[in-house]
């Protein structure tokens, strides 16, 4: 099953490599990984999407907790949470495709943030599956490049990850 794991970690050189190294050394998979400093600059927050059986997820959280730099670990998917991912898609947009691309972007609540005579860059935010759907919905041959941030997630209501 897919799990979204949030990690508070000391914002120190090499912290990311400890997490990434743990996953490769133990053969766990990483679907997406995002990391940035928090409002407290001494801490970074990572969101990591992985998949595995309950036993594997239990080991992953235990192994993450064992890393000396890791302050807290939460499996967001255990309880209500929201998740978002941002995608930028550069598409060919000329002739009749131009109008159609604009229409699709609107349907998916995207924003066009760069315009040239022949291209658009569309910014899209949502769950990963929404972003996937957009890719499927538009004419594949018009896609020039895509870039995604990976998932960020946060617990709902008074579920708070802080020290």
């Amino acid at each position, binding site marked *: 099953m897919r799990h979204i794991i949030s990690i508070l*970690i*000391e914002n120190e*050189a*090499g912290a990311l*490599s*400890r997490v990434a*190294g743990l996953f490769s*050394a133990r053969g766990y998979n990483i679907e997406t990984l995002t990391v940035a400093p928090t409002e407290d600059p001494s801490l970074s927050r990572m969101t990591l999407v992985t998949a595995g059986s309950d*036993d594997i997820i*239990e*080991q992953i959280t*235990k*192994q993450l*907790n*064992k890393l*000396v*730099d*890791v*302050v807290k670990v939460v499996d967001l998917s255990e309880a209500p949470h929201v998740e978002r991912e941002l995608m930028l898609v550069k598409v060919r947009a000329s002739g009749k495709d131009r109008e159609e691309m604009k229409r699709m972007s609107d349907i998916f609540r995207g924003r066009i943030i760069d315009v040239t005579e022949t291209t658009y860059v569309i910014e899209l935010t949502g769950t990963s599956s929404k972003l996937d759907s957009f890719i499927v919905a538009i004419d594949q041959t018009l896609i020039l490049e895509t870039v995604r941030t990976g998932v960020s997630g946060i617990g709902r209501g008074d579920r708070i990850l802080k*020290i």
Partner: protein
Amino acid sequence: MELTGAEIVVRCLQEEKVEHVFGYPGGSVLYIYDELFKQNQVKHILVRHEQAAVHAADAYSRSSIGKIGVALVTSGPGVTNAVTGIATAHMDSVPMVIITGQVPTAYIGQDAFQECDTVGITRPCVKHNFLVKNVKDLAETLKKAFYLAKTGRPGPVLVDIPKDVTAQKYAFSYPDSISIRSYNPVVKGHSGQIRKAVQLLVGAKRPMIYTGGGVILSDADQQLGKLTRLLGFPLTQTLMGLGAFPATDHQHLGMLGMHGTYEANMAMQHCDVLLAIGARFDDRVIGNPAHFGQVARKIIHVDIDPSSISKRVKVDVPIVGNVPDVLDELIAQIESSDRAALPGNIAGWWKQIEEWRGKDCLKFKQDDQVIMPQFVVQKLYEVTGGDAFITSDVGQHQMFAAQFYKFDKPRRWINSGGLGTMGVGLPYAMGVRFANPDAQVACITGEASIQMCIQELSTCKQFRLPVKIINLNNRYLGMVRQWQEMFHGNRYAESYVDALPDFVKLAESYGHVGMRIERPADVEPALREAFTRHKDDLVFMDFITDQTANVFPMVAAGKGLSEMVLAEDL
């Protein structure tokens, strides 16, 4: 007062009451060596290869209570040579601090002379590591290193120090204590969980206690003895746990696992309540986990590292905590529980166990022609009164040592279990001897393993270390040969050890005493001579042993624990 980084390093070692540092110099640690030279409190032990420095420091920790082994090596090749030693300590959770030199900060990343990414290379085989880029952080980082190494689940911690940092100056102050917000190991066990455990224990019909390295690492032998006698249960110990509970005690069924005794493995497989303490259900211990799971039993598991629990075998009552603390509470709760029915309940189980024990699974035949390796270990046990520190290398001789030297005290049995590193035996003996200056120390080894760190005979000469090397010379990579015999149709690919040196002459050329023992009748007299007349000498005892001896019982890889091959089956 302002001190240089190098002075700070030495002052920190002094503050930590470090008496010995095992190391090897080189360009990037020269300032540190210069400071070591100027003082007498911390003694430096010059080895002949960095791997041996780390192994010696590792054994220094393993064989002592509260002393932490420290190794010091230079950047680049010094570090890469040290990696085997670090990984060895890591796999067995041994506390240790490794200080490594690094190229100057401005050169890092430039492919500088003798540069390597030390923190990157060692990251997967240390508990934690640091690169100190600023002299301001040096003292605190070293404090953290010692603290991390010895608390929680212990392990090696590495501190990488660029050369310029050892030359820069900063006001020295050593913190009295330290806390790390992201690191809070649990000490006390959860009382509710302990209560559940007690209910299972007092209600058991076929109970079993299974203990491991965690009991040794936490010096909980007193509590373990008390608990085991209080319950009257049978007990088995892993290779890493030997000595925590006396091997000569009737409640001890011997080691379990791949080369464990018949009675220990059968009892482990068939018990209804299992109390696991500081042991990690290793693949060499429980065999095939699916086969192990075929018998329904309740498992209670005490371990300080949550990730050791339910990793390979699902546990019913997890208790996260430090062994001595948890056992103290367990003992108190058992003492106040109603357990009058217990002895009657388990009488039948003991009867069954005695039947298994009656198989005498370790028996072997010693004729008057060829020396059996088991016989040498038996005689060594007798001659040393069972009271020596025994180090070993890796192979058949290691298993014979574990099976036939009956350890009654903890921290006497020093070997590499998790990584299984050939070459540790001699440097381990050095580390033991520095930590226990008057102790009898013997290294049980094989003609192949001993050659992996043989250069340390020179270190032993320089520091007058009267280690007794018990070389069980079967002219084979015996453990490999055994697998080839059993699983690869007797095709002995590359397992014959050809072109052996004359070990007697070799020992003599290093300035030691050498003996070759070829007949069973000479085994005991030779050992007596080594431990009396040559008490103060290093004696290299080359025992020419049976080439075909195999280690039994054996649970083949992937087989179930009760599917042992016994010597009598062949």
